């Protein structure tokens, strides 16, 4: 079903693609772009600065591209991108960027479940799953294919690598390197994320190289800077090692321990 409900308030200046459907009492502001075949539910509000891709489903009562909850924000121009095929759940709040980066980005095929909050300047990679009631602070980066389950809080400026799984109701206050499964309070490395490796058909060699690199990081008894050196020397041209070293290099809050 496509079409606009008669009670929806849709600005004439908004750029809306083909076959877009907009539900009752929803509001679309002026500076909004919506791609083809996107569905927007009831009572949702799409504020200025939203750039929504194709085939996106936004459910009821969502607040998309609202102004950041940042005391330094002074109404500067900024954007919020939602990639193609993403699903945005009920009562979610997605805030646009501040002048620090100018944009909040949600990738393609992302699922954001109900009551979740994505703050200003976040970068959410492709195919990330975000469970319900997950509260994500400003400037957080989550890389592709990671799974953040319900009730988790993420501190501002934290980074989560790709293929990470986090169980429900934990708190992220440090950076989580890619390919691992994390749990416990305080959050720590539990295992490699074999479940996602299976789901994404990782080759035996790739799993083995991940295993080799991470056993130096977490099981060699070395501290992180020594382990970094050892990984650099032992695996000079292993792509997994390179990814991990880059991740640690960029980490401003430190990475989680074992």
């Amino acid at each position, binding site marked *: 079903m496509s079409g606009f409900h008669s*009670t929806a*308030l849709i600005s004439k200046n908004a750029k809306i693609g083909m076959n877009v459907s907009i539900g009752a*009492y929803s*509001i679309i502001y002026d500076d909004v772009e919506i791609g083809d075949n996107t569905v927007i539910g009831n*009572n949702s*509000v799409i504020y200025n600065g939203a750039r929504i891709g194709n085939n996106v489903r936004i459910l009821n*009562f969502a*607040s998309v591209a*609202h102004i950041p*909850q940042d*005391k330094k924000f002074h109404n500067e121009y900024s954007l919020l991108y939602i990639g193609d095929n993403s699903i945005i759940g009920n*009562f979610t*709040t997605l805030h646009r960027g501040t002048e620090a980066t100018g944009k909040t980005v949600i990738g393609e095929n992302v699922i954001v479940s109900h*009551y979740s*909050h994505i703050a200003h300047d976040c970068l959410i990679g492709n195919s990330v799953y975000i469970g319900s*009631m997950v*509260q994500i*602070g400003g400037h957080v980066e989550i890389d592709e294919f990671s799974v953040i389950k319900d*009730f988790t*809080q993420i*501190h501002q400026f934290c980074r989560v690598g790709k293929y990470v799984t986090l169980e429900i109701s934990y*708190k992220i206050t440090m950076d989580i390197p890619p390919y691992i499964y994390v749990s416990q*309070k305080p959050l720590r490395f539990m295992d490699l994320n074999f479940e996602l490796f299976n789901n994404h058909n990782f080759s035996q060699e790739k799993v083995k190289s991940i295993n080799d690199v991470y056993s130096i990081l977490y099981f060699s008894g070395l501290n992180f800077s020594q382990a970094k050196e050892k990984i650099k020397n032992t695996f000079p041209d292993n792509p997994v090692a390179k990814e991990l070293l880059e991740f640690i290099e960029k980490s401003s809050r430190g990475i989680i321990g074992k």
Partner: protein
Amino acid sequence: MVSIHPTALVSNKAKLGENVSIGPFTIIHDDVEIGDNTIITSHSVIYDGTRIGKNCKIYQGVSISHLPQISKISQVSSFVKIGDGTTIHEFVTIHKASKDGNYTSIGNNVLLMAYSHIAHDVFIGDNCIIVNAVQIGGHVHIDDWAIIGGSTPVHQFCMVGKHAMVGGGFKVVKDVPPFVLAGEEPLKFNGLNSVGLRRRGFTSEQLETLKKVYKLIYDSGLNVSQAKAKIIEDFPSDPLAKEVVDFIDKSKRGIIPR
């Protein structure tokens, strides 16, 4: 000039100040007073008994002065008072007091972030920050300049003192004294909130006094009532020490341990 969107339902009996702006699909009940220059955006409902100050900003889907979540109550003529310059983000719920004529009170320049819940009979002082998804129980007293971190529930009847800061993702089940940081589970004293205090113009001498006061309470081997007597003896005329002593006197649930 008052601007009311044609789709908003605003009672004739509601008292709106100058330049008040009411967004689409918002409902304003009869017994409501809204101060000058306050902005209420879309989809909010302001129930009977609300008193909103000047220059407030109330965003999407907010519910103010709804009935308290107490099973016996089906009707009560109590109030919600919101001070000047307060900002209330998406989907915040503020409930009115549980007894006729009483107030749930929120101070000036308070920031209530998305999804936070303020229950019946709560008092929130000026310049407080209540971060995302903080759930505040009935009769809670939060004093000026306090900050409650994201997703932290506050048990009913708890108190949080002036300039205190509670970390995100913890649980407040006892009283948090003024000027301190609180974190960990179960919630503990984590030192003085010296960064916050310096930002607000406290001098080094004042911080030194507070350090000594909290050393007596938490690091002297005395129990709280002995420490209180010692503080009164050592700092007979110091206003900050008096603030701490008064807080301990008022505390019914006991203060957080070390």
